[in-house]
Each structure stands twice: as C-alpha cells, then as structure tokens.
C-alpha cells in the first residue's frame, strides 16, 4: 500500500489566527488528511505568555551563541527557528507532567521553568546536568539520540501502574527517528498504552544529512499507524497549531487513551552546533525562505493584528529578555570550575574503597600543585 501525502498539505501553512490551529492527522491505515482547522482554547493572557516565552527563548538562544563565541560555553546547539515547536509543546503540559528533552531542546526546557544558568551547565562544562530533575520534572538534556524516549515511556508506564494521571512528553529529531530506540519507544508506548507524547522536531537536517536521506517516506508521522497510535503532522513554526496538536495528544494520554506521535515540521536557522558549518550542505536560498516564516516574528504579527499585545507589554518582555541575558553573562562568564574531587562523590550512593583511594590520590596531586 502506498501512502499518498499531498505536497501542498505537507508545506507549513501560514498563520491562521491567534486561536485557530490546523494540523494533519494520520489515520489508522496510514492515509494523511489535509491540514484541518481546529479551535484552540487559549485566553489572551495565555497567548501573551506563549509569546513571552518564545521571545525570551530567542534572547536566551542568541546569548548562548554569543557566550560560546566568547568562550564561556564550550559548544551550543541552537534552537533558533524552533521556538514555536518547543515552547508550544511544553506549554501543553501540566505541572505534574514530565519532560524528556535532548540537547536541542534548551528553549523548551527553559520554557518549562528550568533556571537558565543551571540549564546550560552541560554546555559550560560545569557539570553534565546542572538542575534537579525532580524539582522541575524535567529529565537531563540527553545526548545519545532517542535514548531518552525510552525513559519517557518507562516513566509513563510507572505512572500508569501507580494510577497517577500524568503525561510524559519527549522530543527527538528527524535524525534520531532513525535510531532503534526511537522505534522501540514508539512500539512499547503503543503496546502498553503509555501516556506519552512523542514530539519529533523535523528541522530538515541531521547535522548535514537532509531528511530525504534519513527516510524514504515524506513524514515521520507516518510511522504512527505502523505501531498502532495516532499520528499528527503540524507546522512546527506555528505555535498555536503546535500547542493545539500537543494539547490534544496530552489530553488523550491523560484520559488513558495512549500515546501520540507528532511531527512538527520546522527548520534550524542556525548551524547544528556552534562547531558546525552550514555552507557545506545547504543553500542560502533555503534558509532565506525559512527566515520569512520566522516563528517568533510571525506570532508577534498575528498578536499585533489581533490587538492582543501592545507596546508596553513588548517593552516588558524585551527588558526581561535583557535581564535574563545579563544573568547568563554574569554567571556563565568566568564561572569557577567546580571542585575536582566532586567527580568521586556521585558515582555510587555509598562510597567504595576503590574510589576513596583514587580520591585520596587526586587530593594529594591537588595539594602538591597548590604548594608548588
């Protein structure tokens, strides 16, 4: 059976309006609908909150790139252009829900409330995970691709066993979708009807390898019927549609109706990381085209047209962004290295004789270095 996806329907749509969303559904037999309109229940306050988080995210992202160029971060994976996909998804979660991000989802994790300085510890090199997962109900930013999707499924299975009405949302990318763990996670979640929402940010590239070399299909969402769960394809640059699609999936999961696979089609406007060079694999024309669909600017345009934001609100958001950026500079620039001896502290709950001996050895080295 071949699966027909109209190319027009797969193109990201223009913004339909502040509370109007649209997305494509993948039916049980694999057929994908055209983008259908949906009403999304968001108050003007919520719309402003969404914009605020997206605008702050962009400022955080830009500051992180600058801090990398200045040497305060070792490397950074930018979310520039993917703010709607991340913030819109996270906005659909309740306080007790769990988020399983990758290194790409810094702004989604920031939008979840994780302190930005702690969030960037992975990139500044101060510790692998700088925040307390239990405090925010956010797992560490995961680097081995798609591995965290299984953690989300396991946590969701545990929540079901304990009869807790919570949902686990995990992100992964179009590249990670090729990993075995992505397939295992989708299948296991479906088998156990686990309350998981999988949000695949399809940004067109796995570092340099384009989407059409990652899969022979036109959409990651088409995998959903293969494992027996609903699939959705949504314009990842339209925050209202992302929110609406993810909220639908979150609600479904919370009702005990199982997982959903959502593909948010977006574009990484920056390089894969600060160590990457996009000129070797993609054209200026392509990124120019996507810049015209900028998710933050597009949303602002719609909000302005709807009279939902005014200049004083925008000035407040900008000032908050500058304050956040200043805080990043203050705490990430010249931040002291931690105590080297701490590397021994958290390997096991109870210290081992072997590690105690090695800790003493390093302690002597440090002392000798101090004295010389």
């Amino acid at each position: 059976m071949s699966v027909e996806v109209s190319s027009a329907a797969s193109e990201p749509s223009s913004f339909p309006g502040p509370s109007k969303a649209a997305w494509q559904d993948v039916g049980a037999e694999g057929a994908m609908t055209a983008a259908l309109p949906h009403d999304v229940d968001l108050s003007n306050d919520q719309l402003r909150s969404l914009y605020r988080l997206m605008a702050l995210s962009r400022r955080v992202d830009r500051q992180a790139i600058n801090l990398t160029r200045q040497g305060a971060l070792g490397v950074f994976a930018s979310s520039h252009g993917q703010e709607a996909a991340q913030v819109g998804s996270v906005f659909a979660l309740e306080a007790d829900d769990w988020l399983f991000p990758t290194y790409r989802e810094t702004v989604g994790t920031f939008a979840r409330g994780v302190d930005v300085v702690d969030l960037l510890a992975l990139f500044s090199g101060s510790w692998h995970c700088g925040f307390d997962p239990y405090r925010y109900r956010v797992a560490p930013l995961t680097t081995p691709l798609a591995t965290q999707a299984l953690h989300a499924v396991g946590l969701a299975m545990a929540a079901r066993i304990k009869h807790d009405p919570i949902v686990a949302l995990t992100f992964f990318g179009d590249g990670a979708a090729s990993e075995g763990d992505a397939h295992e996670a989708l299948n296991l979640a479906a088998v156990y009807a686990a309350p998981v929402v999988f949000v695949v940010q399809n940004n067109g590239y796995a570092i340099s390898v384009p989407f059409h070399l990652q899969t022979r299909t036109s959409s990651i969402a088409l995998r959903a019927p293969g494992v027996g769960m609903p699939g959705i394809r949504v314009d990842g640059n339209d925050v209202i549609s992302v929110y609406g699609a993810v909220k639908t999936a979150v609600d479904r999961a919370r009702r005990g109706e199982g997982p959903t696979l959502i593909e948010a089609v977006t574009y990484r406007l920056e390089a894969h990381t600060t160590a990457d060079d996009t000129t070797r694999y993609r054209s200026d024309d392509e990124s120019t085209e996507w810049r015209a669909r900028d998710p933050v600017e597009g949303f602002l345009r719609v909000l302005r047209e709807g009279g939902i934001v005014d200049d004083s609100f925008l000035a407040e958001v900008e000032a908050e962004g500058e304050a956040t950026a200043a805080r990043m500079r203050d705490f990430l620039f010249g931040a002291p290295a931690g105590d080297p001896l701490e590397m021994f502290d958290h390997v096991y709950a109870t210290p081992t004789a072997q590690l105690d001996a090695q800790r003493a050895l390093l302690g002597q080295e440090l002392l000798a270095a101090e004295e010389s």
Partner: protein
Amino acid sequence: MELTMAGALNAALRDSMREDDTVVVYGEDVGRLGGVFRITDGLQAEMGTDRCFDTPVAESGIAGTAIGMALYGLRPVVEMQFDGFSYPALNQVISHVAKYRNRTRGRVGLPMVIRIPYGGGIGAVEHHSESPEAYYSHTAGLTVVSPGTPADAYALLRASIAFDDPVIFLEPKRRYWLKEDLDLPVSAPPIGEAVVRRAGATATVIAYGPMVTTAMEAATRAADESGWDLEVVDVRTLSPVDMDTLVASATKTGRALVVHEAARFVGYGAEIAAELSERAFGYLAAPVLRVTGFDVPYPSAKIERHFLPDADRILDAVARLLEY
C-alpha cells in the same frame, strides 16, 4: 528445605515483591511462561500483570524503560533472556544506567536490577553461553553481582533489589539446578563482600558465579589426591570488588590463581591479578595465575568442554604455583 538456585532466585523475587510494592518484574516471556528458565514462575499469577509482565522483544527498550520507572520511584527488576542478547541494551546501560547518579550530581539514583543468565556449559547454540562480566565491571557506576550458591542467589538478589544503585545481576545458568539445603529467608550478605568458601593454606583459588562449584570440586580433589589444602574465595560482588578479602587470602597462602569462563585477555582475572601483585607482592611466592576461557569466540556445544576451565585445569595451575 532443598532448593535449587533457580528456586532460590524465584523465592527472592517473590519475597521482594511481597515486601515492597514498588518492585516490578518484566522482560521477555517472564509473565505467563515464567521465563525461559522459570525464574519468574508464578509471579504474574500472584502479583498481577501490573507487577510482572511480558515485553515485546526489545532489550534496549527493557533497559531504557526501567530507567524511567526507577526515575518515577519504582524498583524495576528486568530480565535479559540470555547473555548474548543483552548487548542491544548496552547503550542504555553504559550511557544512562551507569551514569545517571553522577550526571545529576547525586540527585537521581536508579535503583534497578538487570538480571542476566550467563555463561556456558549447557550445550547451547551460539549467543547463549557468553560471559560479559568484564564489560559491566569496567563501567563506572554499575554494581556487578554474581552468586555461586543457591543461598547466595537468594540473599544477593534480595540485597540487589533493595540496593540504591543499579545492579547487573549475573546468574550462572549452568548452576540453576544446583541444590542446597536452605531455610528461607537466609540473611543477606552485604553487596560488596567476598567470602572464603573453604579455608586452606596451600594456595588461594579465586572464583565467582559458575566457577565457584568448579573451584570447590578442585579443592576437594586436591585434598584427596595430592594433600593440598586449597583456600577458595568466592568474589560474589565483582564490582566494587572486596579486594581486602582477596588480598588477605593471597597474603596468607602466598599463592593465588583466579578462574573464570570468560576469555583471558583484559578479562576480570587480569584486574584481580594486577591488584594482588600491587598489594600482596611481598607475600607472594609465585606470580598470580589465570585459569580462563581461551581468547576465541565461545565454541559450539560439542567442543565447549575443552574451552571451559575445569577442576583439572585448576589443579594443573595449582601445580605450577607450587613448582614455581
């Protein structure tokens, strides 16, 4: 009551599940069937399908979901059906299971047990007789346990389930049918303690898992046939290893060998030999010897007995220690 190691493991799982309702058991065929070795026999019937359930055939998925479960406060005890099929889960084990506590600066520990039937000697086809202990023992953050007797199988599995860190629990499958008189529950030795199984003066034989029985057989024969009085030390917890007990024994006898089924090169015995030479050098009358499998892929069933260390091979090595 006479109990096999398989029965002792089954009892340990049942008792742990009865005592702590956060303990969940899952894996391939562990539910309705009770596991291919019947270690989980009857658990689903007693505890229900939320507490003991079958999974799709997905070993990375089994290990990966266990991480999420532990993160949420359950104590998952998962089964890898065979040693040779545990490798798809290695990425989850090495990249996450072992590292989560350290990554989160001690904020998130992962209490979980990954049970793996391991080792050869049962005439199995390829991929069913592997000894992967060095991979796990080499990985910081993992605790690696392998019982040698039914009593230890019960006690160490219970201790592993109650442990606050992830445990790789290696079950010597050729000893599943080994019997011992036991009154359950036997009290748990702490994780991280080796035990002197047989006190002796001539030389120390260090063993674990399936080779404990082989080493004891060698010691009995040595006493009968040669008048040698061998000390047998059962490592029990491979990592973190109780080196003090091993050093004390080698220091006492002055001669030591370490025996395992796994290949020799960069094997577990190499670490033990190196540590003994560092810490007991002045007390040793001979170099520490290794009696191990050969550096070949595990051979097919009809010739596996030539690969596996046996009592003869251990006694030959003891002779070399004495004739040094």
